[in-house]
Structures are given as structure tokens and as C-alpha cells.
């Protein structure tokens, strides 16, 4: 008989979620094998002897041998076995860890394993506590006492039943032989230690919020699901795929290109701030630094995407484009990005400005795209939506990627910045210096301030690069004359 309690069940609702437990069990069976498993001995407790007792160091050595791992890993694995309740400690029953010494453990009986389908619910726990109460004449641990009081209140309506069950189980227990009784008591105590741990103790049984779908139920698949699947498979079959050798080759190339730039693999100049507590690396690579570092400049040459994502690189690219008088492509790309990622309410105004500035015939910053794309875009702008500039934007981006980017890399602008770029000396801190650095840690500039600065700069740049009104200029010059 079970009662559904409103409090979250500490043992997970859907036991089958714990996929790892099946594998654990097969390992446990091997461990318990009398010939090839962990060596078992006996423990003498006053007059009784408890059989099948294993030592911590023996278990860890067996695990280490079987799984070919280090002792540290084997110890961590052993602790997991104890935490999940497959093995329980005999001496310090409250601390659920496996120690690499001669402390004693025993295997838990399969009845109490976490994979069994029955859930340890509150009335079972109440019966257990009541039984303990009878036996120890009212001496429970403080947290158990707190639980007991709470359950007494909560399950008051069936308390008679609970007490009766407890008394019966106690009587049945007394009829067992002493060693069996001791063993069973230990097992039960270990079981409840795992499933009802004291407050603030970590429990391996914590599984987080319940998942909605039970993996074991067979969902009835209706015809529309099959239709969707068929549509998906057909589309997937038709889509173009690439040979593994080609795509894996590309991945290897990516890794080799970035190898020296990965701070976790190669050294970070001047030093990794997390290791030496000195933030020179971050100050040298800030957004608006005058002279960037050599590594940063090298990274710009990897791809157009890298160049544009690093805003300092984008600035440099803009300088180059200004010299070539082809800044409108990048400006259009940036405006299209803003449209794509902007708020829904600002879309129509942005689309209009973009049309007037870049796409309308005779526009001040007219971009040169092919007729078909231009036609599609202009037509789409009649009912502007978020992705209306996709085709044009991709076209412009590809143009920049295939042509402008490579010219930039060969240009004097880029070569100039390469020459000027800093190559900081690696730091060499003594332990005393490191301590000093640790004391001098500062939080750096807040991202909100950086963002505000960025917005100000953008506004200034927009004002400066506003399309020149030729007629106004001419009239000004006339007046001067």
C-alpha cells in the first residue's frame, strides 16, 4: 500500500532513467564472484561473526585492475558504488565514501538495490523508524527524530497500521539467528542512509527535476508522425553530403591552424591571467587598443569571419575599405545584421532606411549585386520581414570573403599593422611576485560601460560617414566663393 506524498520523491520517479545502474550491476556481480571477485573475509563483532566482509584497499585494487585505471579513479568509482548503495561501510556508516585503507565494507543485498521497481516511500520509512524506536527504546539520531515527528504528523491517519507493521517486523526479526539479524539490520540501515540521508548531506540519489517522458512506455505512433518522418528522410537523402575524408580533413586543418592560439594548449603571451593573477593579457587584447598583439593580427588572417567578429579587426578592415572606396558592402552587411537580430518593432523603419541608403536606384551607398538578387530583395521589401535581406546579405558577404578579404591581407594596411603589432615578453614571476599579483586583482571594466562606450563610438561613426549630400556641399562651396 503506498501513499502519494506531495513532497518530491528522493528516489527518482522513473527508475529506468538511471541508465548507468545496469552497467554497475554487472560489475557488482563480477565483484561478488567467489573465485575472481574481491577477496572476502570475516569480521568478528563481539561474539558473532559476519561473513563476506571486504576491505577498502582490496576493493580499490580490484577495480583498478579490472578497469585498468589509476588508483585515484578506482577510489572515485568505489565511492560511487557506496554512494548509490551497492556497497555499505561497516564502521563509519554515515560517511558514504570508499577509503583506500583497511576499513570494512559489505555488499548490499539485491533486495535493497536502487534498480528495483519499488520506490522507497514514506510509509516504509515510517515503519523502519518505528521499528528502530521499539528496539533502541526511543533513541534515534536527531535528524531521524525530526523525520519521525514529521511523519507522525503527516501519516497520522495510518499510524496504527504503521506501528502494528513495525511490531510484527520486530518480532519476525527476533526469530532469526543472531548473525542474520545483525546483517539484515546493517543492510536496512545502509539502505535508508542512502535513500533518506541527513540534511545537507550530498545524496547520489538526487536526480534533479523529473523528466516528462518515460522511456519505457511505448508511445503510439500515429500516421502523421510517419508522414513527417518520411518527408524528413526524403529530404535528408536528397541533401548533398560530403565524404568523411574531406570533412574530417577540414576539422584537422582547423585544429592545426588554431593550435598556437589555444591558451590551454600553447603558452599564452604574456601569461595566462588565471595562472599568474596578472591581467596584462586582457588589457593588451581589449576592444579599443591602439596597437593589437601579433597573435591577434595573425588570427584575423584565418578567415573573414574571424576578422569581422573581432571588432578591432573590423575597424582595421574598415580603414582599408575606406582607402579603396568600397565601404558600402561592409556597411550594408552590418545594417542587415542589425535588422536580422533587432527588435520586431524597429524592423520596418530599419528596412526603409536600408532601402534608401543602399538599394534604391541612385542611392548614396548603392551596393553592386546581381539583378536577380536585387529584384528578389526589392520585391521582399514591399512586405518587410526579418530575413528579407538574407539573399543580398549572403551575396555581399561571399563577395567580401572571396575577393576583398584576400586583397586586404595583401594590402599595405594589413602589412603595416602586422609590423606594428606587439609581441609581449612572457612573464617570469617569482613566488613572491605571484602572491603580490593575487593581492592586486582588480575587476576590470564592467561590460555595461564597455557597451555604452561602443554605442557612443557607433553613433559618432554613423554621423561621420553619413552620405554626403553633394548638392549641399556644392552650394556651400558656391557661397564661399
Amino acid at each position, binding site marked *: 500500500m503506498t501513499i502519494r506524498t506531495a513532497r518530491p520523491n528522493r528516489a527518482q520517479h522513473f527508475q529506468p532513467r538511471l541508465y548507468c545502474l545496469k552497467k554497475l550491476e554487472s560489475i557488482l556481480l563480477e565483484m561478488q564472484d567467489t573465485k575472481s571477485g574481491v577477496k572476502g573475509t570475516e569480521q568478528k563483532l563481539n561474539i558473532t561473526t559476519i561473513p563476506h566482509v571486504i576491505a577498502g584497499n582490496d576493493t580499490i585494487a580490484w577495480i583498478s585492475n579490472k578497469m585498468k585505471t589509476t588508483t585515484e579513479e578506482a577510489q572515485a568509482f568505489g565511492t560511487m558504488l557506496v554512494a548509490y548503495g551497492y556497497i555499505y561501510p561497516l564502521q563509519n556508516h554515515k560517511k558514504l565514501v570508499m577509503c583506500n585503507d583497511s576499513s570494512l565494507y559489505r555488499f548490499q543485498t539485491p533486495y535493497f538495490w536502487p534498480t528495483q521497481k519499488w520506490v522507497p516511500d514514506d510509509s516504509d520509512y515510517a515503519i523502519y523508524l518505528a521499528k528502530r524506536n521499539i528496539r533502541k527504546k526511543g533513541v534515534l539520531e536527531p535528524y531521524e527524530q525530526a523525520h519521525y515527528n514529521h511523519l507522525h504528523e503527516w501519516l497520522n491517519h495510518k499510524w496504527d497500521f504503521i506501528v502494528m507493521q513495525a511490531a510484527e517486523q520486530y518480532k519476525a526479526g527476533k526469530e532469526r539467528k543472531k548473525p542474520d539479524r545483525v546483517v539484515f539490520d546493517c543492510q536496512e540501515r545502509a539502505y535508508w542512509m542512502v535513500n533518506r540521508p541527513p540534511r545537507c548531506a550530498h545524496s547520489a540519489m538526487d536526480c534533479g527535476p523529473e*523528466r516528462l517522458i518515460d522511456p519505457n512506455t511505448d508511445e503510439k*505512433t500515429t500516421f502523421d508522425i510517419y508522414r513527417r518522418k518520411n518527408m524528413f528522410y526524403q529530404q535528408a537523402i536528397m541533401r548533398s553530403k560530403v565524404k568523411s575524408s574531406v570533412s574530417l580533413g577540414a576539422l584537422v586543418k582547423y585544429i592545426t591552424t588554431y593550435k598556437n592560439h589555444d591558451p590551454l594548449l600553447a603558452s599564452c603571451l604574456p601569461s595566462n591571467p588565471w595562472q599568474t593573477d596578472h591581467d596584462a593579457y586582457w588589457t593588451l587584447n581589449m576592444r579599443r587598443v591602439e596597437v593589437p598583439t601579433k597573435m591577434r593580427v595573425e588570427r584575423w588572417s584565418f578567415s573573414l569571419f574571424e576578422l569581422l567578429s573581432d571588432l578591432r579587426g573590423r575597424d582595421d578592415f574598415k580603414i582599408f575599405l575606406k582607402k579603396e572606396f568600397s565601404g558600402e558592402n561592409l556597411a550594408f552587411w552590418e545594417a542587415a545584421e542589425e535588422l536580422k537580430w533587432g527588435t520586431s518593432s524597429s524592423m520596418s523603419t530599419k528596412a526603409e532606411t536600408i532601402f534608401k541608403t543602399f538599394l534604391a536606384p541612385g542611392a548614396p551607398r548603392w551596393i553592386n549585386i546581381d539583378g536577380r538578387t536585387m529584384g528578389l530583395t526589392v520585391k*521582399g521589401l514591399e512586405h518587410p520581414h526579418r530575413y528579407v535581406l538574407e*539573399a543580398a546579405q549572403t551575396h555581399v558577404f561571399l563577395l567580401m570573403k572571396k575577393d576583398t578579404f584576400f586583397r586586404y591581407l595583401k594590402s599595405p594596411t594589413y602589412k603595416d599593422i602586422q609590423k606594428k603589432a606587439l609581441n609581449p615578453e612572457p612573464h617570469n614571476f617569482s613566488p613572491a611576485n605571484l602572491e603580490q599579483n593575487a593581492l592586486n586583482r582588480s575587476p576590470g571594466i564592467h561590460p555595461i560601460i564597455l557597451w555604452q562606450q561602443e554605442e557612443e563610438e557607433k553613433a559618432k561613426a554613423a554621423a561621420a560617414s553619413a552620405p554626403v549630400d553633394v548638392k549641399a556641399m556644392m552650394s556651400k562651396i558656391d557661397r564661399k566663393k
Partner: protein
Amino acid sequence: MCDQTFVAATFGPCDSCSKPSPLMNIYIKNEATNYCSLCVEMMACQGLQKGETLESLKRESETLKKKLEEERNKLNDVECNVSVILCWPILIVWDAFTLNKEHGVPLPCTWVLACAYAPSGCAIACGGLDNKCSVIPLSLDKNENLAAKKKSVAMHTNYVSGCSFTNSDMQLLTSSGDGTCALWDVESGQLLQSFHGHTADVLSLDLAPSETGNTFVSGGCDMKANVWDMRSGQNIQSFESHESDINCVKYYPSGDAFASASDDATCRFYDLRADREVAVYQKDSIIFGASTCDFSLSGRLLFAGYNDYAINVWDVLKGTRATILFGHENRVSRVRVSPDGTALCSASWDSTLRVWA
């Protein structure tokens, strides 16, 4: 990248209802057509035609699936086992750089499952068991009550498992336990696009870093990892090789591949261009599920956090474990590499965050 194949016909008039909208390219009786998402749904749900039964559709589904596997295998000419030389730094554990707490926002919801930082650094998004994802603007004033400015953006019918800002502060992508992902406009709270296709809870999502940035990958309890097009809501690719729930998906830095971490104690690496799984990261001694994964800056290392309180570091190319990081006292729930790649941060149920460098 993959997005280039969708440039040509993603927008325009639908072939069935003629309304201009984002289009999905599908095949009807082996002919390529472009339908808007509403027409696709209607077509999928129309009653059984003459000669069609549930059985015949099921058989067709299975034949197509086999054919797809055959097609994928034809192009599999090389396995992922490359040897490259590399050298090792030291690992030290630090707490955050200054151990300062910048902002503290009290939240009424007891379980927050997902949080994200806006690209500008001016706002954060969080969501969880309250079925919502809210955006909280940050301020420089430390005494300001940030909880008052909290704004609910996403509304799902079940818990929110993951959230992420897109390239700007104005759009939010969320994944939920109700099996869907959704794209929201932050300012108005409007739903811009929803993504249906998972048959169980979606546990995580990640946006593609590629230059055209229009796709994202999601992983769920139905053991599938799906790649979606954000514009049309179409499920572009799907990978089903895990044996249990996928807890975390993460794109490779170049955007051409992604990794997933699952309860079956393996991490798998999928290549998007070859459309298949190329590597499995597993070891006999690792039995407990992986709950999170992240790549280092170059993509050579894959950091995965497990439920046995350790973080395993895998060599992506060789497929072997490079090292193991101990230190946490409860399961590791998230690992993230910093954007500049200098350090790894791991969060755990033992209430600590550790930074590894």
C-alpha cells in the same frame, strides 16, 4: 558552410498557398517543392489517403531510413583516428579572478535550470521550473533591485531547460521540457518561431558560430540531436545514435560539427557536412552519465562533466582521454570554456564553481 545551400529558395511564395513566408524545401513524390510551415503541417495531418494505411506508412518510413543510412555509409571513407603531436600545460584551480560577487538577483522560482549572458553584457536570461524564461537587465548601481525589472519573455507549457541569446540582446532561443524549442523577441515577448520535432523533453541547445549564424542544434530525451534552421523552423538534420537521454550539445568552434554528452556515459562527435557520427568518446571505467560538454578554443580538447563528480578531458582527434580532473564533491552540472579560451569553469551540485587554467 551548410547555410549556403539554403540561400536560394528559403523565402518567397509558398508553392501551395502562395503566401510569402520562410519556406521549407521538402520532397513530395520525389519532386522538390517549397512549402511554408503551415502547409507542411496540414499536409502531414490530412487523413489517410486511398491505399495508405498506418502499416504502409511505417514500412515506407523504414525503407527510407535504411536508404539514408546506405547513402551516409557510401561517403564514409575515413575514420577519425589522426595522430598529431601536442604538448601539455599545468592545471591549477582558482576561484573566480577577484572572488567578487558582481550582482545578486533573488528569484522567486526555486529551480533555475538555464541561464545565459547577453552578448552586450547588459542583461541576463534565466528560466527553469516556472515554465518561463525571464530577462533581467543589469545595472552599474549595486544597490538597485534587479528583481523588480525582471521581464518574462518566454512561456512554455513545461520547464525551460536551456536558453541562449542569439547575436544580439533582442532575441532569445529557449528549449523546454514540453519537447519544443522557440525563438522569442525580447522586447515584445512575441514568439517568432517554434521548432517541433522532438518526441520528448529537449534538454539543451547551442547556436552555430558560423558567419551566417542561422542554425542551432538541440538534444533531447528521445536520444536525438536535431539541427534546425532558425528562419523557417525546419529540422534540417537529425542524429540518433545515443542510447539514452542527451544532456548537452555543443557546436565545434568552426560550426561544421558538434558534440553531445549523454546519460549513456558517452560523448559523441557528429560531422554536419558528412551527415554522420564520426567519433564516440567512451571508456569502460566511465559508467556514469555525462551531463555537459564544451570545446577548447581550437577544438582539440573536449571537456565533459560527469555524474561521478569528475571532468574527463578528451582528445577530439585521437578519440582518447587526455586527462581527468577531480575536485568536485557532487555531480558536475556544467562546464564552459571562457570565450578567449584561457580557462575552463565547472559548476557542480556541491554549490561550487571551479575555474581551471
